[in-house]
């Protein structure tokens, strides 16, 4: 398409975003303010991730887009189509074939490699936001490593419910410095964040980019006597039999019969193909 630049954004804007990405990689977990652009899709639909992907993609890249772990959810389809149209890059549904993977709410089950970049869409980048609504305050708290409030919150959960009642967007500490929101991935995915691939996080509406470089220490916050636990439905996938993958629960009939299937559609498909 000739009306727009490669991957939609103009080169100046991409340069500005790349500077923010590099700064983010240099200071793991730190939220870098960037001049987010209005994209041709609404805020909340992944504009941060789309801008990061646009600044990251080269014509040789092969892109995979997932939402809730699946390649065929409507918004994943829409974003994949956007880049097919504006960047003309090759796309794939196979995790291992992709060089850039844009995701919403999941980390793929297959282990990622050093040749891959995982781009997360982030709604609220500030892990302290629901404890302190003011940005001016939370930035101060980060600079002073004043994370006591977060531990008090987790402690209150335990004293009230007997367990930490955060099931997704479970806060992590990156490289022993910044407390970071991993985006609304289920806490099942948290341990995967120590990986070989580059992880980039884009929050368009909130105008923030942050990053986790390869092989960086990412620790889910917990207590010695209440250690972090990556949980999932206590079932195996009803389609591929996997016992190690995160599952979606599907209601099958009026009687409320449930079925559990892999949320990562590529993982499930490849396992079934291998078995066939």
């Amino acid at each position, binding site marked *: 398409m000739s009306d727009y630049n490669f991957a939609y954004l103009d080169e100046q804007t991409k340069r500005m975003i790349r500077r923010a990405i590099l700064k983010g990689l240099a200071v793991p977990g730190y939220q870098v303010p960037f001049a987010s652009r209005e994209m041709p899709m609404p805020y*909340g639909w992944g504009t941060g991730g789309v801008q990061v992907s646009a600044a990251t993609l080269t014509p040789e890249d092969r892109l995979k887009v997932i939402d809730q772990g699946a390649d065929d959810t409507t918004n994943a389809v829409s974003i994949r189509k956007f880049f097919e149209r504006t960047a003309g890059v090759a796309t794939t549904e196979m995790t291992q074939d992709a060089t850039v993977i844009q995701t919403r709410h999941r980390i793929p089950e297959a282990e990622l490699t050093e040749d891959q970049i995982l781009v997360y869409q982030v709604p609220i980048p500030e892990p302290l936001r629901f404890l302190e609504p003011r940005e001016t305050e939370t930035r101060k708290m980060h600079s002073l490593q004043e994370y006591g409030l977060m531990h008090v919150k987790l402690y209150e959960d335990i004293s009230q419910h007997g367990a930490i009642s955060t099931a997704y967007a479970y806060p992590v500490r990156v490289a022993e410095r910044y407390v970071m929101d991993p985006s609304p991935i289920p806490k*099942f995915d948290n341990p995967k964040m120590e990986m070989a691939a580059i992880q980039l996080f884009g929050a368009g509406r909130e105008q923030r980019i942050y990053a986790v470089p390869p092989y960086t220490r990412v620790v889910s916050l917990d207590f010695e006597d209440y250690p972090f636990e990556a949980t999932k439905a206590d079932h195996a996938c009803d389609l591929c039999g996997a016992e190690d993958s995160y599952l979606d629960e599907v209601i099958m009939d009026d009687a409320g019969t449930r079925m559990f299937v892999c949320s990562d559609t590529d993982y499930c498909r490849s396992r079934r193909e291998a078995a066939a």
Partner: protein
Amino acid sequence: MYVAVKGGERAIENAHAWLAEERRGDTSVAELSLSQIREQLSLAVNRVMAEGSLYDPDLAALAIKQARGDLIEAIFLIRAYRTTLPRFGASRAVDTGAMACDRRISATFKDAPGGQVLGPTFDYTHRLLDFKLAAEGAVPPAPSAPPRREPTPHITEFLGQEGLIQSEPESEVAPRDLTREPLEFPADRALRLQSLARGDEGFVLGMAYSTQRGYARNHAFVGELRIGRVTVEMEIPELGFAIEIGEVELTECETVNQFKGSKIEPPQFTRGYGLVFGQSERKAISMALVDRALRWQELGEDNLGAPAQDEEFVLSHCDNIQATGFLEHIKLPHYVDFQSELELVRKLRREAEERIAHREAAE
């Protein structure tokens, strides 16, 4: 047997086709032209230009047509287009004192040089449905008079001559650009005004209204409200001087606010300011009230804890494109988060039931 939902792509295409059909409506009814929208729905066009931050009535009309009259959607279309345009530079500050006023009123002086000019206002219309409009017909021409040639001075200048109103020192510092830099706090006044100028009319109105009802009341008088066209001039580096590059219609509101003085300022009148593209006076007045409320710190007033005094609250939530996007995104799939919540609630319930059973057994 469960089959994973496929065919998202076809569903999206079909939805778009249906949307296009719905937009057109009954094809036996003549289609709206852009010039009809531009000329006959001009206040909608003005709002789209103001909150879209792009002065182009034809594109705004196109956006309104494409958005089926949903103005926030139209504003979004304009914003998404605007952000792709290159930025050549900044114009000189427009001189609203030289405005060719269609409307100019003051609530603080019965008369002043330039006079009170009602202009095309709804103010004194009786809100009775005009059923004649249901039938098409020609409108009789309005009476006309030769326009004033001389400039219309600002009302606040007369107060300034006596030193009764706080002066606004001129600044040569180029204001930051909200569309090119991330919004960070504290924001200076220029940035606040930029943000309010493109902020949602309803939100800014609600904030302004809250100050009138006592949440950081600031006793505003409309010192002046003027609507008209001003020329836009730009310095061209190659030429070494400024040339006129066009004309825009603006609404400007200056409020005169009662002020008893503070620890750092003597008793005097203070100002709130609103400036909006097109004829958008509700927005301009609201903006001026909110601007004044946000100036509490600079004027040494107390923070009363009112929402309209809270810069971070107002500026972070006044943009309707951000707000509508985030609000509406909750209709996107959230199965994964929801699944993790399901697991958690089941676990907590199981444990709670065990505790109750344990207690009952003990009793």
